[in-house]
């Protein structure tokens, strides 16, 4: 329940953004958009860095709710969320434990697969493995097991940093090097051709719902960093250009993945729908991008809602779930 003292007045929100991750810039942009949307409906926000003064700022700002809009490490790996939990101030999004599991792509895939959700075959390889094993035979085994093409991605990263679609096995080693600069563990995943969907799952206190999936069609075929953050580089379709029953299957799968991973108030589940209409789980985003051209805001608009109202509902839900 919202306390008596808070009735009739808006909750005060501290937004955590920035951090030392490869996605710092995107985090800052997302945070400003969240602050703008909340300001439009009269909510007071303050944007803070998760730095040396983190705990001092929480004491000074006295927020009712904290919203960690931190992409990448610390924001998504659960560590910061554990610290926030200790302060007793409610926060938007997954708990530390859930974030830790979902942020690690191989772990998230294993967890959802255990619950019957389809996810492309994959193998996770720590960098250290190549020091002990024969590289040639490992790469040959991977190629044989998954067959080309494959997607090579850092096990823990976002914004498509370090991601390569490898069509020819001879380029696998280069793709591994490019992924290992982001993370010491790399996921090599069987490439599934089809329609790429981003499905926002939210829980405003009455159970998880999926917002209209956003279909992603990059102009040059690849949804990399530039295509994600340059207006005009990607076409987005909401509703997705798929049959209704296929969209429903994909949404049901996204909700189930969100529940399995325990992502609480908000997540974005990335899905590929193959040519037979089967949705495949690719990854879960604990802190999805919230910039002006990000996927979650598109889904909120497509559902006929205003960003400010939905964001504030998330804040209220977090407050109630203390």
């Amino acid at each position: 329940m919202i306390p008596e003292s808070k009735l009739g007045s808006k909750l005060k929100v501290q937004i955590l953004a920035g951090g030392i991750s490869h996605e710092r810039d995107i985090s800052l942009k997302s945070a400003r958009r969240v602050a703008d949307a909340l300001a439009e409906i009269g909510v007071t926000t303050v944007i803070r860095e998760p730095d040396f003064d983190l705990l001092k700022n929480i004491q000074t700002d006295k927020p009712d709710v904290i919203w960690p809009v931190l992409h990448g490490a610390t924001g998504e790996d659960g560590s910061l969320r554990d610290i926030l939990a200790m302060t007793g101030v409610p926060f938007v999004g997954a708990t530390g434990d859930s974030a830790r599991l979902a942020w690690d792509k191989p772990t998230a895939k294993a967890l959802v697969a255990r619950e019957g959700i389809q996810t492309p075959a994959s193998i996770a390889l720590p960098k250290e493995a190549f020091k002990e094993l024969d590289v040639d035979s490992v790469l040959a085994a991977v190629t044989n097991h998954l067959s080309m093409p494959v997607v090579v991605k850092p096990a823990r990263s976002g914004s498509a940093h370090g991601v390569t679609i490898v069509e020819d096995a001879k380029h696998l080693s280069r793709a591994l090097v490019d992924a290992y600069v982001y993370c010491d563990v790399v996921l090599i995943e069987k490439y599934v051709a089809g329609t790429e969907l981003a499905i926002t799952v939210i829980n405003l206190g009455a159970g998880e719902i999926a917002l209209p999936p956003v279909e992603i069609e990059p102009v040059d075929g690849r949804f990399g960093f530039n295509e994600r953050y340059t207006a005009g580089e990607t076409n987005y379709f909401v509703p997705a250009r798929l049959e209704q029953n296929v969209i429903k299957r994909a949404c049901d799968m996204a909700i189930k993945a969100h529940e399995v991973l325990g992502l609480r108030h908000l997540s974005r589940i990335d899905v590929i729908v193959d040519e037979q209409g089967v949705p495949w789980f690719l990854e879960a985003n604990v802190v999805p991008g919230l910039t002006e051209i990000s996927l979650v805001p598109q889904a909120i608009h497509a559902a006929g809602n205003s960003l400010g109202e939905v964001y504030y509902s998330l804040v209220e839900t977090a407050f109630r779930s203390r």
Partner: protein
Amino acid sequence: MTTHLPPHGQNFDPWLDSYAARAATLSVSEVRALFSVVSRPEVVSLAGGMPFVSALPHEVLNQSYENMMAKRGNAAIQYSGGQGDATLREQIREIMALEGISSSVDDLVITTGSQHGLELLSGLFLNPGDVVLAEGPSYLGALGIFRHYEAQIEHVYTDENGMSPEALAESIENLKRQGKTIKFLYLVPNFANPSGVTLSAERRAPILELCRKNHILVVEDNPYGLLYFNEPVPKALRSMDEEGVVYLGSFSKIMAPGFRVGYVLAPPAIRDKMVLAQESALLCPSAFTQMLISEFLANTDWKGQINTFRGVYKERKDAALQAMHDFLPNLQTTRPDGGFYLWITLPEGVDSKAMLPLAVKELVAYTPGTAFFGDGTGQRNLRICYSFPTPENIRVGIKRLANVINLQTELLDTFSHKES
């Protein structure tokens, strides 16, 4: 499974089909986004070419500000002439004289940083497909402007003595044979960004002669010339050729870049067009910052201030070279006699741009070598800027960099022989 729904979705840019062709050169960059972390105190940034402005005492600036407002307050906050403040132009003559340049105050145009001077000049001269000759490597801010005007950038071989006249002659011949129009030779002759090298006195006259003979305008960009550590730099190219050289100067490195005041010394016909172009683009440069600088130059020991900067940067250059010696003794680096930069050559196979995410993870930032070439080369190089971090932090940063390079080399060693 695709149904017949609208052919075009939302792309967040309804004007996508309306941009000029040159706008295609402007896009977000993954590297630029990574640089966002350099503002965090945990990260040692050896990336941006930032002057150590803390060496410029605020009380001196405050006094200059008070004097300026008392003497010229209303003029300082008013529109001013497109060519810039006449008093400041007189004072700039004195600065340029230190490098052997004599000029008429009428031939000077004040600009919003020398970057804006370069932009105006490019707008006046460059048609799509025109060639700009530049050192290899060259200043990334200039390359960005040339690209924006859709010029073809041709790098000329450059060694520890600057651009090679022989290589320049060869490039000119090749380009002429291809029927190309060469508009500029763009040079940062003193303590160049990014290499730190200085064009030797012996090479200056032959380069000017080649350009004269081939009707190529020389653009001499000289922000670092006064920041020498031991010996003054050779005489400016402009001091040897008044008609064939456009000279760009700046207060960004000898005072502070926040003022955004630079200047262009150009032959009269070019000067006239630059003034008109400047008036068209922004009416006039900021009178406020021009007059503040003018007051600073009139009533402070500005030469002493430049000396202070020299001392600061020499100490940092020494710290950087010592750290290179201690932690990366096998890497080739330039040894500048002034300015801000070291240019490092990495071990075979190491790509500085691909390695940058690892460096950011290890809390050190640098600028990848590819940023300083218009043709995608420079993968094996990186630029270290030593001007801003303290000597202690420079050492920490280079130690971290050494670790990053070792990690990356180890990774490449594991996989390199697998790449076809």
